Structures are given as C-alpha cells and as structure tokens.
C-alpha cells in the first residue's frame, strides 16, 4: 500500500478532517467570489436583451443555478448519507447533515426566483409547471430529512434514519419529476416554455459562471457547517479540548 492511499483515508476521521476543512474554506469562498463577479459581469453587462422577455429574463442567472444546485446537493447529500450508512462512517453522515440546510436554501431560492420570474412573464406568482412543482416537492424532501434528524436525539440513529430518507428520496426524485411532467403536460399544454429556444452564448456562459459561483459557495458553507457539527458531536474528545480556539 502506497503512502498516498493511506493519506486519503486519514481524512475520514473528524479529527483530521477538521483542520483540512478549515484550510479549504477560504479557497472556496475566493472561487465563489471570482465566479460570481465573472458571472454577474456576463449576466448584466455582456448578455444582450432578450427579444421576448426584455430585461426580465436575467433572473435565469440566479434561477437556473439555484435549481441545478438544489438537485445536485440532494444527490451529493444522499451519496454521503449512503456511504455513512453502509460503511458506518460518522463523518460522511455529518457531511450529509451539513449539506441539507444549504440544499434546502437553494431549493427555496429556486422557488422564489421562479415566482419572481413567473409574475412578469406569465402573470401569476405561482404556476404549476413541471419544474417548479418538482422543485417544491424537492424542498419538502429536504425539510423531511432535516425534521427527522432534528427529532431523533441519538446522533447515530439520526444519521442512519436520515440516510434511509435521503436514499428513498433520491430514488423517488426521478419518479416524481417524471410524474409531475406527465401531469403538467396533460393539464396545461405547452403554454409555458422557459426561454430555451435560442440562447445566446453569452447567456449560457453567464448561467454557467453563476452556477459555479453558487456551487463554490455551497461547498464553502457545507465545510463551515460540518466543522461546527464535528465540534458539537465530538465534545467528549481530547483533540477538541486541545483546539486553540477552545483554549482561548
């Protein structure tokens, strides 16, 4: 076994991951800021006005990234949860726990920006289109995960129960999306079509950069939160008590 292989597994222990996460956080904040500046520049000063939607379409530069992130984070959360359950790895479950609130926030922002986009474009604050409805259900799945973990006192039981919820949810997300899409096309026809017809390259770039911005932000947030969770769950250990920030 090479030394490098052993090195990676070292970080599966909260004790070793804590300082590593601490060093990574500023990197991700910086990346987020850089991508954000680039994305906002693209979105507001380079991308042209849309023929049909005027300036209002610019909301996609936050709506689409938050939607993508909400789904991506859910999958990552479910993966870490599954690893924590199958390998009995505490830190993996802690990571899932750390990701959930950020993912839920992304889902909420997706719904909010979706509504703010819908009002000027389609006249109402809420439309039951397939994507927004699926997003709403995803938001409920996040809330269920967080509520279940919050209501179980024993942390290990909460980890494992949460893992089952996350995994069952992950399997159901495609089923839910498909069924909502079917339901929507039957009931509403094609009146609502998010501006996908011909997107200028600059618009795509703007969306991509903003997505990267939110992604880096989410990683930074998850790492920050997991450090807090590690401290909360490892209060009895010596290494925590020896931390410089604890010894003041």
């Amino acid at each position, binding site marked *: 076994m090479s030394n490098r292989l052993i090195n990676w597994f070292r970080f599966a222990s909260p004790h070793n991951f804590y300082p590593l996460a601490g060093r990574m956080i500023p990197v991700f904040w910086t990346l987020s800021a850089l991508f954000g500046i680039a994305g906002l520049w693209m979105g*507001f*000063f*380079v991308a*042209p*006005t849309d023929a049909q939607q*005027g*300036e*209002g379409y*610019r*909301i996609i530069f*936050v*709506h689409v990234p*938050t939607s993508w992130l909400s789904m991506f984070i859910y999958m990552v959360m479910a993966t870490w949860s599954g690893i924590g359950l199958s390998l009995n790895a505490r830190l993996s479950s802690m990571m899932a726990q750390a990701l959930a*609130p*950020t993912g839920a*926030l992304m889902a*909420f*922002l997706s719904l*909010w*920006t979706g509504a*703010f*986009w819908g*009002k*000027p474009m389609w006249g109402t604050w809420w439309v039951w289109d397939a994507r927004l409805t699926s997003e709403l259900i995803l938001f409920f799945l996040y809330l269920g995960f967080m509520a279940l973990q919050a209501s179980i006192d024993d942390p290990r039981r909460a980890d494992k129960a949460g893992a089952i919820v996350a995994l069952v949810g992950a399997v159901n997300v495609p089923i839910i999306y498909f069924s909502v899409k079917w339901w929507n096309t039957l009931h509403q026809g094609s009146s609502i079509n998010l501006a996908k017809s011909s997107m200028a390259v600059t618009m795509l770039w703007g969306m991509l950069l903003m997505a990267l911005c939110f992604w880096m*932000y989410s990683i930074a*947030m998850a790492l*920050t*939160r997991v*450090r*807090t969770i590690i*401290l*909360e769950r490892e*209060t009895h250990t010596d290494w*925590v*008590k020896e*931390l410089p*920030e*604890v*010894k*003041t």
Partner: protein
Amino acid sequence: MIWNSSAEFFAMGGYGLYVWGSFGVCALAMIVEPFLVKKRHNQILQTLRHQVLAEKLEKETL
C-alpha cells in the same frame, strides 16, 4: 456597455422589481446563511470553553 445610464440599469426595462427582488434575496441569503452558521459555531466554541474551564477547576479542587 448595454446600459446608457445607471438609472436604466436599476430599472431593468421595467422589470426592476423582479430582477432585483430575485438577485437581492439570493444575495441576502448568501449573507444570512454564513452569519447563522458562524453564530452556531461560536455557540459551540463557547460551550466547549466552559466545559474545559469546568474540568480544569474540577481537577484543581481535587
């Protein structure tokens, strides 16, 4: 530069409320969330400090 004036930029062709309502809430969220996490982190640090202090005092009195 697409915008002829800053007033035009803020108006966003009449969609100002919606565009800034969206970007604004996202920006707000990205400030509030880190703030809340930081607060939670400080709380646990405080708890840990008290715990360490209590153990130290306990050892001294023994």
